[in-house]
């Protein structure tokens, strides 16, 4: 029997991502999280029945980057739109992808009520502690003392309160089935994030209720850091205030694993 060496492709761009180049800044982890979601959709073979709901924010053009059916929601209203899509077409997999301005600020009512109702949808929440698209203003998630365009002396928590911790808040609601926080600042956390995305989709496929993942994401441009140092900034500054972990994993999720 003759042996020969052949080259095998072991990693490539997922089919669920389109060929379009993204408009994201170099090193922005939006693209990385898009890629992880695309990989999981490919692996679960649900591309033909998945609907993405795009937010307003940096990821507003998300429908150009996924080879999926998509809808564009009004600012902050992606969970409401996803609710309608899922109730009318319960066989579809519906997810929203929202930033911190969209989900934690203008859209806080919609995400709270989608979770309280236990809608059978999945929400990916991208927390980069700043308003990216509008040019780097203070967000509800900005850290105490963080310098932004609208807090040039640093976030004053005496005046504005402490940053909002969405994963913990949603985990406290009875309608939520799965609520976790992940990061993408190194290879280990990227692998954990991908596993969580798979679990979140499987929760929805099992009809088990609302699944939510908060990602700590970087914004090199508005943080004023290089992409590599921005990832260090997540690890050093964001992770202590936004601890990574599972905040709610209902018993039915453990059976899915």
């Amino acid at each position: 029997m003759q042996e020969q060496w052949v080259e095998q492709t072991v990693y490539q761009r997922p089919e669920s991502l389109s060929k379009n180049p993204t408009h994201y800044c170099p090193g922005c982890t939006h693209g990385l999280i898009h890629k992880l979601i695309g990989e999981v959709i490919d692996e679960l073979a649900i591309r033909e029945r998945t609907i993405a709901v795009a937010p307003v924010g940096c990821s507003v053009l998300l429908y150009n980057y996924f080879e999926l059916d998509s809808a564009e929601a009004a600012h902050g209203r992606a969970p409401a739109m996803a609710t309608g899509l899922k109730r009318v077409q319960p066989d579809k997999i519906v997810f929203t992808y929202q930033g911190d301005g969209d989900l934690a600020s203008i859209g806080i009512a919609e995400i709270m009520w989608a979770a309280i109702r236990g809608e059978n949808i999945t929400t990916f929440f991208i927390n980069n502690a700043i308003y990216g698209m509008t040019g780097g203003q203070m967000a509800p998630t900005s850290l105490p003392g963080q310098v932004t365009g609208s807090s040039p002396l640093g976030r004053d928590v005496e005046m504005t309160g402490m940053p909002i911790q969405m994963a913990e808040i949603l985990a406290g609601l009875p309608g939520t089935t799965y609520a976790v926080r992940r990061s993408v600042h190194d290879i280990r956390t990227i692998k954990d994030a991908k596993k969580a995305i798979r679990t979140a989709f499987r929760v929805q496929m099992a009809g088990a209720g609302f699944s939510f993942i908060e990602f700590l994401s970087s914004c090199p441009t508005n943080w004023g850091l290089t992409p590599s140092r921005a990832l260090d900034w997540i690890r050093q500054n964001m992770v202590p205030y936004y601890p990574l972990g599972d905040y709610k994993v209902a018993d039915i999720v453990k059976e899915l694993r």
Partner: protein
Amino acid sequence: MTRRSSLAKGRIVIDQEMCKGCELCTTTCPYDLIHLAEQYNAKGYRPATLVDPDGRCTGCTLCAMMCPDAVITVLRHVKSRAGSAPLAVAA
């Protein structure tokens, strides 16, 4: 095609026109084989390039996992026995 060590052998293909030169892949390569090119692409970025004259790339996929723009394809040399099921041979 011959092997020089017990480590896997591989290579990466970077879509130079899609790369934005963020350098995150260069920080993950265990052998420091990825560097920014001297020339610019059409977008005005210096794209990442594999510089691997000694064939040290193992196809570990760490760079591709880290790439925010999903522009890295990883190929690895695998053993194929004649008569067994054919493997997909990358172009």
